[in-house]
Every structure is written in C-alpha cells, then in structure tokens.
C-alpha cells in the first residue's frame, strides 16, 4: 500500500516512519473532534482534556501497529472511545482517583488555561446558554453507545459504517441506537420544543 486515498492514512504512515510533523498535523486536525467526543463522555472538562491528549499519545505509541485497513478517523475514534470506556470503568472501581494517577507521566503538565476555555464566542442570549445546558444534560444521560453514535453522526465526517466499526456493532444496530437516542432526546426536550422557542431557524 504505497498510495492511499485517505490523506490521514498517508499522514499516519509517515508517523509510523517516525515523522513528528505528520503527527503534529494529525493532532491539529483532530483535537477538536476528539475533544468533542471525550468532553461529552467524561463529566470533568480538565480530565477530558488530559484523556484527549492521552488518545493522541496512544495513537503515537501504536503507530508501529497501524495498518491502512480502515479510515484513520475510525481507528482514532475507536482508541478514543476505548480510553473513555476504560476511564469510566476505572472510575466506577476507584471513584476517588483522578486521571493524574492514571496518567502519572502527565503530572507536570499545566492544567487547562482558563483563557483558552472557549474558542467560540458565547451567544449573547442567556436562553441559548440554557438551551445548550439542557441539551448537554440530556445527552449526558443517554447510554454511552447511543450518545457516541449520535455525536459521531452529527457531522458528515463519519458514515454509518464508520460509526458501526467504532461501536463494534452492525450498521442496522447503529441506526437503531441513533434512533432510540434521538427519541429519548426528543422526549426529554419536548417541553422546550413545544414552546417553539428552540425550533430551528
């Protein structure tokens, strides 16, 4: 496989050869999508960022095993999801432990810088902020698979086949997860939807 139609896979093959610039390019490109997933899986924003960084570290460490058998993003999000699940399991066993103890090599890392917290301008409307909180809360209450499926489905980046691979289930099961998750969201957000305030413009 000297040539690949997936540019990310080509970058990853360069990473496999030890190319740090290619790795940096991948981190720049996918830090936001990975953070979006991790941030909505782990409740703590700071620890979510630590874990997101660990996702990329894991990508780098696993680069020698990388094979272009699937889209790079599928591989990346599979790693991200597995690390999230490991963290959730670890927390259920040791609720008092922090991520710093898990990733001890990150101890000397500075924590999130407050001035970087949001890279978007908060809407001027408090209503919009309240709306976001309600949606985030409703998403957080979904089962992990439904939430991940809905979040991955949100953009045009992933096909249903890609999402199915990350979730390790069939395409029809993936669509079913999304459908059930959306039904739950609609139920939970129904009072707000009925007012018409939040309907799409």
């Amino acid at each position, binding site marked *: 496989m000297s040539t690949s139609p997936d540019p990310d896979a080509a970058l990853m093959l360069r990473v496999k050869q030890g190319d740090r610039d290619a790795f940096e390019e991948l981190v720049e490109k996918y830090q936001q999508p990975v953070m979006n997933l991790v941030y909505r899986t782990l409740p703590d924003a700071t620890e979510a960022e630590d874990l997101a960084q660990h996702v990329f570290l894991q990508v780098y460490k696993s680069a020698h095993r990388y094979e272009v058998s699937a889209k790079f993003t599928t591989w990346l999000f599979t790693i991200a999801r597995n690390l999230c699940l490991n963290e959730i399991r670890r927390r259920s066993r040791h609720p008092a432990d922090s991520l710093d103890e898990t990733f001890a090599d990150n101890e000397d890392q500075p924590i999130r810088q407050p001035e970087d917290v949001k890279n978007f301008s908060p809407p001027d409307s408090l209503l919009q902020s309240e709306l976001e909180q309600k949606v985030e809360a409703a998403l957080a209450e979904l089962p992990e698979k439904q939430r991940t499926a809905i979040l991955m489905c949100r953009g045009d980046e992933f096909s249903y086949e890609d999402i199915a691979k990350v979730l390790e289930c069939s395409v029809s099961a993936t669509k079913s997860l999304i459908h059930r998750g959306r039904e739950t969201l609609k139920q939970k957000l129904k009072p707000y939807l009925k007012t018409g305030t*939040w309907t799409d413009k």
Partner: protein
Amino acid sequence: MNESEYQSLLETSWRRPLTADELARLESWAAGHPEAQAEWEAEKSLNGLLARLPDAPVASNFTAQVLQAVEREAKAVSRQPSFLEQVKRWFQRPAPRLAWALLLVGVLWFGYDRHQANVRTDVAKGMSVLANVASLSDPAVLEDFEAIQRLSQTAPGVDDELYAVLNQ
C-alpha cells in the same frame, strides 16, 4: 416518494443538512401525512439543536502538550534499561535474592550429602575387605608355610635323581 424513502431522508438529515431538492421532496410528502409532519418538525428541531452544540473547549497549547508527552515517552523508552541491567536489577530484589540464597544452600547441601555418601561407600568397602580377611583359615595352617615354600624352591635336578633311584 414512499415511507422507505422518507425514512432514508430522515436518516440522512441526522448526518447532514438536506439539499433543497431532498428537503422539498420530504416536506411535500410530510404535508400529506400529519404524523410524518409532526415527526419531521421534531427531527428538524433536534437536528438544529445538535448542530448548534458548541465545540468542547480545547487549550491553545493542546498540540504542544501532546508533543511534549510524546517527547517524554520517547525519552522514557530510550532510558529503558538493557537486558543485563534488568537481570542485575532483578537480582537486587529481595525475593529473587532469597530464592538464589536458598538454591545455593540447596546445592551445597546436596554436594555435602554426596560427599558423605561416597565416604560411607569407601568405609563399607574397607569393612568388606576386613571381613574377608577374618574368614581365612586358622593361622596354625601357616605354621609349616616356610618349609613348604622351601620345598618348592629345591632344584628340579634333585627330584629327577630321586626318581631315577626309586625306579631302579
């Protein structure tokens, strides 16, 4: 358009905004089906809400931190001790040291035991020789030993002469 195509367009709307043509077809079909119309309105609202969800906050130095972590990882790998170093460290741990001490004691004990066994065998052999000596005939038999031995030392010619005399 039928129910199946309607469902397919709904699923498409979950992933991306519908094109003008897709939207027109879907809304045209929904207009004739009140239940579908209500469902589509709810789906549309939810699509809008999910699409407007803000990105998670990411530190501006996220990439730098990841690269630092990679650097640390690379250093940690290069600092990993060699095989000999690992063996040496292994021996320095209490449990292996105790195990080796016990093994050494065992080997010494085994060697000492084998040595003792050999000594006992030699002693037994000596005793059996002595036992054979003890089973010899009475020493009185040896009383005329020297005279008999001298007989065998007489010159052969003497016997011949005696033999000739006796024959005459």
